[in-house]
Each structure stands twice: as structure tokens, then as C-alpha cells.
């Protein structure tokens, strides 16, 4: 029998097994029959049985997922400042602007400008 035909027959039977169908028609081809037995063995050998037995691992994984995701959300929320924090930042910035009034934008001199002109470059 051609490989492609065998593959299609195997797939059709496997779909029935995966769907939980119990009474499956007998298979004529020996190789396909062996592969279907292997498939049933693999399903029965469910590797997650170990995590079902060890409930703590499952809970640990879930707790880790939720904790990590909540931390991400918390840090995202921290980017959005509340009013108090905004005032604090604005206050700091206002102070900086105030200080910058005394700095000449032309030469960078920090001298006090009594008449509005820089004593060094007259800007």
C-alpha cells in the first residue's frame, strides 16, 4: 500500500481515538494497527499525570503566572502618576525652569541679569 494512503488511513483512525471513540473498526494493515496501539499507549502515558499528582506544582505555576502578570500590571500602572506625584514632578520642573532663567541662552553664563542682559555677552 502506498505510504500516502497508509498515512491518510492512520490519520483517520487516530482522529477517532483522539475524539474518544471506543468502538473502532478493525484495521487490515498490520503496520497501521501497531501505530494505533502506540498512539493509545502515548495518550495513556500522559506526562502531565505527574503534575496532577503533584498538585503543588500546578498551584505553584499558576501562582507564578498571576504574580508575575500582576507585577507587570503594577509597574505599568506606576508609569501613570497620580496627582500628588504629578505635582511633585511639575514642582521640580518649575524649580529647574526658575534656575534656568538666570542662565544666558547665548553663552551659558550663570550671572544674574539685573537689566535682562547678560553681563558677559550682552545678549
Amino acid at each position, binding site marked *: 500500500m502506498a*505510504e*500516502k494512503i*497508509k*498515512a*491518510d488511513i*492512520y*490519520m483517520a483512525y*487516530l*482522529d477517532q481515538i*483522539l475524539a474518544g471513540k471506543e468502538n473502532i473498526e478493525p484495521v487490515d494493515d498490520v*503496520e497501521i494497527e*501497531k*501505530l494505533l*496501539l*502506540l*498512539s493509545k*499507549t*502515548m*495518550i*495513556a*502515558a*500522559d*506526562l*502531565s499525570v*505527574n*503534575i*496532577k499528582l503533584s498538585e503543588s*506544582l*500546578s498551584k505553584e*505555576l*499558576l501562582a*507564578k*503566572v*498571576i504574580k*508575575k*502578570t500582576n507585577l*507587570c500590571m503594577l509597574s505599568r500602572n506606576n508609569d501613570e502618576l497620580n496627582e500628588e506625584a504629578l505635582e511633585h514632578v511639575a514642582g521640580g520642573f518649575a524649580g529647574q525652569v526658575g534656575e534656568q532663567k538666570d542662565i544666558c541662552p547665548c553663552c551659558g553664563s550663570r550671572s544674574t541679569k539685573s537689566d535682562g542682559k547678560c553681563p558677559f555677552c550682552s545678549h
Partner: protein
Amino acid sequence: MTMLTQAEETLLIARANDDDSAFAELYNYYLPRVYNYVHYRVTDFHICDDLTSQIFEKLFSRLKYYQAGKAAFSAWLFSIARNTIADYYRSQARTRCTSLEITADITNFELDPSDIVTYNETQQHLIKALASLTQRERDIIALKFWSGSSNKDIAILVGISESNTAVILFRAMRRLRIILESQGMSIYG
């Protein structure tokens, strides 16, 4: 495991966005399938635990972007799982300087003593045999057995035609059977 109907699943997904208990329910429903999928792809069970956790973290943070009309939820979830594993193997390949995507990841693989305690004899044989297959073969077997995705979805995920999926799966299972038999494992009762 109780199977959810399409409507129940849709409702659960919608609730899981804002409700931790609904997410826990979704998590418990999909955990065995995702865990098996990852373990078929990655042999070490410590890494498997870690990757499973990463997949659910991604699921939780991206759940609001899921669009039911575009893909089945399981296809969407398992595309996250595939990408997480691909990232893992990419990072491994960078350190080992070999492409693990196209070759079997561990040759002459032996289980760690702690794994031997964890798994029964059949599981040990299976994990050892899977390690001898290529990543593509393991991917297709894992998707077919554990993702619950249709053959069409599997073909789209892997990037091959639907008929090719059947042939590759058939060949991979044939190889797996030969490897298991060479290990002395009897699968015929």
C-alpha cells in the same frame, strides 16, 4: 477531563480577562495539554515546567487581544506555545552554535536520576525515544496528540500542506515505534 463546549469556552475566555478565578479555570483546563505538548518538545522536565509557566504568563497578558473570529482558541494558545519553545531553542542554539530546529536535540539521551523517580517505565521510554526524533517530527506529533487542533490548523501552524502533515506524522510515528522497540519496550500488551 471534562470537555468544555464551544460556548462555555468562549464565556470562560471572556471572563478570564478580568477574573483570576476564571483564568485559573482556563489554566486548569489547558494545563495538561500544554504541559504534554511542551514535554514532547523539550525533554528536561525542569525546563518544561519553566516553559509551561512562561506560556501561561503570555496567555494571561495577551488574552485581551484574542479574537475568536480569527482562530480557534486552542490554535492561538498553541501558536504561543510553539513560539515560546522556538525562542527557547533559538537561545540554546546561540550558546551551542548548532541548529536544534532541524536535528534531534539530544543524542544518546539518558534521563536524569531525578526524572527516573518522576516517571513510570513507559513514560521514561517515551521521553527517551522522543529525544531521538527531529524537532519537526516532535512538533507535529505533539500538536496532533495534545493541542486538540484540527489537521488544517496544524498544517497552518507548521507551515506545510494538510496532506503532508499526515505523511510526516505517519513517518514520525513509524520511527518512534522502531526506536521504542529497539529500547526493548513492548507496546502491544
